């Protein structure tokens, strides 16, 4: 374990863009956890304070209701990160479980599961998510995360399955079978550690995918617009005419910048993980 972290640190230090990504992710996580303790949104705005230019009190100016944009950005971090993380956990768990079981068991379980995977991979995910979100119409983070994961697990399941199939013939698996270990042990103790690296990278990219779709739902107004998060901020900015006046440029662009920086940070950090786990890339 200590060796793992030493390797990780060495690769991050060598690849400055990945290091930047890692630092940014840590910052976002800290803001999501501790941010709401330090800043508060007033429940009713002051019309007189609308569209102020940046000042000491409001570092990024104010919106049409007179609330500080910086404050809203901080408060809006938690809901976005929360749902993104939950959705990634669901997709990773389902994908890995189905992939390992079908790859190891084979037979009719495999055939049926792979038909379902084919369907989930073919149906365009975003329209399906929009339709389900429109029918269910909930702002509960758990429900939202479950909706966002409706097709995301399929790609991971297929990749994990093909790795499990190639692992099945390796000696230590035969040894485990001969010892008569239970299925739980074989799948959890023997197979899982070997697909771990791929799963870790998929987990990070799963978060970016979920955030993409989640912000999209709020932008389109399909998910209920209650509370404060970046998607709702952009939606409100656009519906209040931010596109047609330059006054509220910051209100429109700040949440967009927050999303882009987070997504880019995740992608750059996942590249570092890729070279950590993939020795062929590491040698160069």
């Amino acid at each position, binding site marked *: 374990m200590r060796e793992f972290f030493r390797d990780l640190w060495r690769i991050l230090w060598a690849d400055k863009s990945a290091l930047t990504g890692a630092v940014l992710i840590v910052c976002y996580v800290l803001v999501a956890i501790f941010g709401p303790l330090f800043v508060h949104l007033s429940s009713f705005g002051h019309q007189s304070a609308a569209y102020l230019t940046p000042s000491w009190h409001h570092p990024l100016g104010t919106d049409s209701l007179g609330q500080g944009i910086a404050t809203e950005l901080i408060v809006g971090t938690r809901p976005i990160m929360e749902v993104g993380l939950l959705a990634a956990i669901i997709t990773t768990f389902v994908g890995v479980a189905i992939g390992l079981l079908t790859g190891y068991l084979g037979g009719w379980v495999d055939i049926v599961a792979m038909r379902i995977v084919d*369907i989930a991979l073919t149906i365009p995910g975003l*329209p399906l998510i929009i339709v389900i979100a429109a029918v269910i119409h909930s702002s509960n983070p758990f429900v939202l995360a479950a909706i966002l*994961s409706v097709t995301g697990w399929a790609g991971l399941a297929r990749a994990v399955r093909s790795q499990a199939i190639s692992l099945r013939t390796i000696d230590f698996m035969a040894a485990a079978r001969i010892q008569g270990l239970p299925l739980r042990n074989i799948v959890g103790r023997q197979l899982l550690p070997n697909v771990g690296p791929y799963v870790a990278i998929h987990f990070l990219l799963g978060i970016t995918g979920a955030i993409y779709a989640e912000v999209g739902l709020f932008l389109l107004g399909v998910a209920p617009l209650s509370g404060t998060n970046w998607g709702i901020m952009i939606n409100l900015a656009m519906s209040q005419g931010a596109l047609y006046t330059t006054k509220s440029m910051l209100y429109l662009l700040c949440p967009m910048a927050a999303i882009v920086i987070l997504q880019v940070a995740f992608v750059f950090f996942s590249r570092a993980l890729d070279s950590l786990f993939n020795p062929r890339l590491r040698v160069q």
Partner: protein
Amino acid sequence: MISYVGKRVATAVFIIFVVVSLSFFMVRLMPGNVMEFLENQLARQGDLTTQQIQQQVNAIYGVLPSAPVWRQYLEYIGHICQGNFGTSISHPGQSVAHIIANALPWTIFSVGVSLIVSFVVGIAVGTVMAAAQASRFTKFITLVVSFLSAVPNYLIAILLIYFLTDTHRLFPQGGAYEAGVPIGWNLPFLSSVVRHSVLPIASYAIVGFGGWALQMKGSAISTLGAEYVRVAEARGLGRRRIMQSYVGRNSLLPQVTLLALSLGFMFGGSVFIEQFFNYPGIGYYLISAVNSRDYSLMMGCFVLITVSVVFSNLIVDLLYPLIDPRIARPSVGRKGRPSAPREIEEQPAPVGGTMA
């Protein structure tokens, strides 16, 4: 060959069947049943007999709410096979099929052109990157491209609208063509269509080409290490010849498979882009149906988007043997020795965009 084609067609038909069933059960069995909602709404308006209400619902969703569920399901499937998706609520008097038939060409046009643009640009950039791996150009482009591929396409669309249509008015604000131009194959109409489609296509392509470039770079680098390329070099063939016919063609194969997968992603993205540019395609109507709770139009759009994706996947699958004959006839090249058919799908899922 025939069994290859038959298998693909059967899979496609099966997926469409599943999606149609899904759309039925979503309307019929989800919490907050929309059919009952409509019945209650009509009942509250008064002066309608139960009979009339049933007929109204039947006209909109194409099934009788009083019939048993399995009966409704069969009727629904039967209607859809005949191309009857019911009537729209938010566009009174128009059938869903009619609205979709008008919208589909716009989506296919914009998505198709964007896919071709981003594919060609991405492949070209990726090949150059693979040919000059150590250059400063490649390092710079790699950074730019991985940055761009992490940016959501709807944010690019909003930025383009903000800076190019409002502040600077270089391009028209929305729609597919200018109002008042006679529709047909005349120059003013076509130029208006092109001018209106530049920004939507750009917002797909700016995000899309990076993925292709990175994939192509990786694929070309691994082909460059293959032995037949070293043999070609040893034979003294020109660098250009090697890059084009030895490396280029072979490293293009995986990209063609990805082409099919990325189509679904592009159709998904059309929801955002058409909404923001007011481009009257399927995605635009899907969102307007969601916002006005017009479920028959919504499900019609959803089914049609899926059918388009399945259909284009099928076309790619059927064209694939032309590019790589090994797929449909696995024994070619290994004379006399029968071997198990190679699955073309055993590839890792594309990076990014896992949800959509």
